[in-house]
């Protein structure tokens, strides 16, 4: 089992979610985050003061999958989340040792 984390642009969430659903991903966890990277932020003006805001709103998806699904999931995300402009985000893949479903106590692949 692997954990896939993807940082994407917020307005792409619906599309990514739909495409993942289409390839059979039935669960994921979503967090609102702020990203710092190559994409530059925006300027804000409040009376005399000006600020450059370099933290950009992003969405983080966490998806736990069986190892054999990893390639398919990453491809799907890449296709759906891509705009081609700086700031499209990243996908991180990390090892996972165990998954448990709280409701039933099932674990391993069945719990996903």
């Amino acid at each position, binding site marked *: 089992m692997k954990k896939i984390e993807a940082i994407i642009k917020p*307005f792409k969430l619906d599309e990514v979610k739909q495409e993942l659903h289409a390839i059979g991903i039935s669960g994921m966890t979503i967090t609102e985050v702020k990203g710092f990277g190559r994409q530059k932020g*925006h300027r*804000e*003006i*409040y009376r005399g003061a000006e600020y450059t805001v370099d933290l950009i709103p992003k969405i983080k998806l966490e998806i736990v999958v069986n190892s054999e699904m990893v390639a398919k999931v990453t491809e799907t995300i890449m296709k759906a989340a891509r705009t081609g402009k700086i700031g499209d985000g990243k996908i991180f893949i990390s090892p996972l040792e165990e998954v448990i479903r709280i409701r039933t106590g099932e674990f391993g692949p069945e719990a996903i």
Partner: protein
Amino acid sequence: MSSGDTAWMLIATALVMLMTPGLALFYGGMVRSKNVLGTMMQSFICLGVVSIIWVLYGYSLAFGDDILGFIGAPVWLGLNGVGLEPGPYSETIPHLLFVAFQLMFAIITPALITGAFAERMKFSAFLLFTILWTSLVYLPVCHWVWGGGWLGKLGALDFAGGTVIHINSGTAALMAALIIGKRRGYKTQPIYPHNLTLTVLGAALLWFGWFGFNAGSALAANGTATLAFFTTQIATGTAALSWILTEKIVRGKPTTLGAASGAVAGLVAITPAAGFVGSTSAIIIGLVAGIVCYLAVLAKERLGYDDSLDVVAVHGIGGLWGALATGLFASYGAQGLFFGNPGQFLVQAIGALSAIVFSAVMTTVILLAIKHTIGLRVSEEDEVQGLDLSLHGETGYSIQ
């Protein structure tokens, strides 16, 4: 001059002024948070733009000596000649107070339209539109009905502005929604209100201010003002209730946004009738307003134009119903169809129709002119980012 009438008209004028920020909140709460300031700004700045127009030439064109039933003469440019003595439009209050009261109506009317093109219009285009629309659409229609123009002479009843304000702005809203086009993501992404507490607050301030709007239209603190006040309360409360009951039947749940919207629909519908009808008629007018305006919202969903905040359904349809209802239920100081005077209904229909046609044509011309010169709409990128940041360099909230 009467100090009692003056006292009432001073506060009534302040109440109508408050309606425009009330509208800013009502609308502001219904857009997405990235557009809250841009939306509020469009209403708020009308308080500046229209005030200056009004002093320079607006009041004179609307209320100056009648020219062919169509427009007022420029006799009071810069308000020269307008004094603190009772004026031509009322014996008991200063002329300038009438000017102030009418100014507040001129301010809120273009602000109402902003709900139709919310979340996508350029600020410069909006400013230009407001100047042109006020000058070329509001001033004439206002003159027709209240300034000695042809509709008033014909006997059209419009106690506080059903035709001048609501049908007029509602029609403009429809044309604006059609010409500017849908919001990016309309029907494909979820677009819903970001802060309904603002919207309820806005509706409350509108309701409160509307007592000045309707009861102030008596221009005196008297029985007519009282009648207009009371029917306003009754129709509004009833419409809030009838909207949510209809919702409950259609959708299964009565919503808070529905109660607030119903209240506004009731306020709109009772506006032309307020000083002419009794309490029971007010209940009926409100009852129908809540149902009809809600159904008009549902119809929009089918027709497919994107009137962002339902100006057409609430002000256009609500105003139309009110204008016609005045022709049906009038019984104080005038008679409607149900009180033996079918002619009044006809006159009301003529009034409504002419406002619709004139407003539709003129609004279209103005918007197309702007579209093909400086452009109406923000860029796609700016629309995605939101008006607050892209047009104004601000964000509504940074609550941690």
